[in-house]
């Protein structure tokens, strides 16, 4: 129960941060971090898949309503919620662990988290930028935007993970 509340609160907080602060950041004129993925990436994997999709969809829609790009973030978030279990499986490799796991520092090592967050934010940004422009017309500009956004978003999300879930001492 406690877990549910904390997840809901985290998502709400992160969404508000996104629409009221992160959306106003335009580093070098075009880099806007998508910090709200932090809430989605930390959702427990054992949640029913349909609920995960719905949460992703409505989070994306909420952000879209503020940026006047209805559907773009919603689609991107739904997609990353869909591919998330596969990424986790792929990153875990052969090791078969129980399905209940927490995707936080201390449980997962730094390399794992970087690839997990980096790949999913990359997919998200790729979809968002591509769907927004809907063309390969200004491809170089889109590419720099995708890479810039991905790097900044992933960096902020990783920082947040290590701040809110500090790694316990090694002797534990």
């Amino acid at each position, binding site marked *: 129960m406690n877990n549910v509340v904390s997840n809901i609160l985290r998502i709400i907080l992160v969404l508000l941060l996104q629409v*009221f602060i992160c959306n*106003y950041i335009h580093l070098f004129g075009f880099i806007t971090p998508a910090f709200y993925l932090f809430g989605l990436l930390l959702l427990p994997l054992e949640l*029913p*898949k*349909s609920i995960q*999709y*719905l949460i992703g*969809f409505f989070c*994306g*829609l909420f952000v*879209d*309503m*503020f940026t006047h*790009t*209805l*559907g*773009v973030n*919603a*689609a991107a978030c*739904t*997609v990353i919620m*869909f591919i998330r279990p596969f990424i986790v499986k792929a990153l875990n490799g052969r090791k078969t662990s129980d399905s209940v796991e927490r995707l936080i520092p201390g449980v997962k090592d730094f390399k794992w988290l970087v690839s997990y967050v980096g790949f999913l934010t990359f997919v998200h940004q790729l979809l968002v930028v591509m*769907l927004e422009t809907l063309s390969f017309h200004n491809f170089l500009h889109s590419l720099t935007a995708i890479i810039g956004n991905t790097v900044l978003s992933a960096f902020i999300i990783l920082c947040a993970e290590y701040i809110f879930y500090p790694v316990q001492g090694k002797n534990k």
Partner: protein
Amino acid sequence: MNNLIEFFKKNFHYFLLAILLVVSIIMMGKSMSYSKYKFARICQNTIGPIQKNWAEMIHKFSLGQENDLLTQQNIALMRENENMFIYKNDTVISMMSKTDSLHPRSMRLYDYTYAHVIYKTTDQAFNYLIIDKGSKDGISRDMAVTCPQGVVGVISDVSDHFSSIIPILHPDSRISATVSPINQVGTVVWEGPNPQVAYLENIPQHLEINIGDSVLTSGFSNIFPKGLLIGTVKEVSVGKNASFLTIKVKLATNFNKLNTVYLIENLHKAEIDSLKANFKNE
């Protein structure tokens, strides 16, 4: 039949995924349907005001910067004011050179800069102000200080980075002034504790002064340019010294809300003062 339902239950999330993606793609599409239009309208009506208020909040952070830009623009405009120059179109030299006859030869007499008040008193007997510019910023003694509303005072002491101002609200401050329609010259002094009222002295009794007349700087002191607003006449009465009127002046400057001040430098003050020094009565 049971199998079908079982299949449906098992793969429900795939259907949901497809539905959500289709919905978002429809929302992205350029074509407009009525329901889509309505949804966009609802978004606009609920989110628009929130976003507007938030944008205004954020805008307030940049107001200081905007203020500085406006102050600079003000100074650029004020430097071109007519009372900043001496016109010499009637000297012998300018009459001889025909090229200049259309454009009177002008010489800049005053120059402007600005500063911010960092400390001030208004309720003491000897009030003073401190500003954040000093001799390293080109501030010197006896520069005039004004603000958008009216005259403030005169620079009295200058250190490297700060300067003090003797405002009108100081018993030692004496500013040469004229009453606007009749152009009679007097002196504005301050006596009382009220930071809004000063007195205009040396106006002979036979002159007719109306309530509401503006009191302007005369430009005779070589500190203030001519025609800056000091205040308006509030009350006229016959003084104890029967030959002069006692005139109460409501000061135009609100000293309590003073923040940005303009500093005016007389570029030829030393030259004029050297002439004045020959006469003993100062």
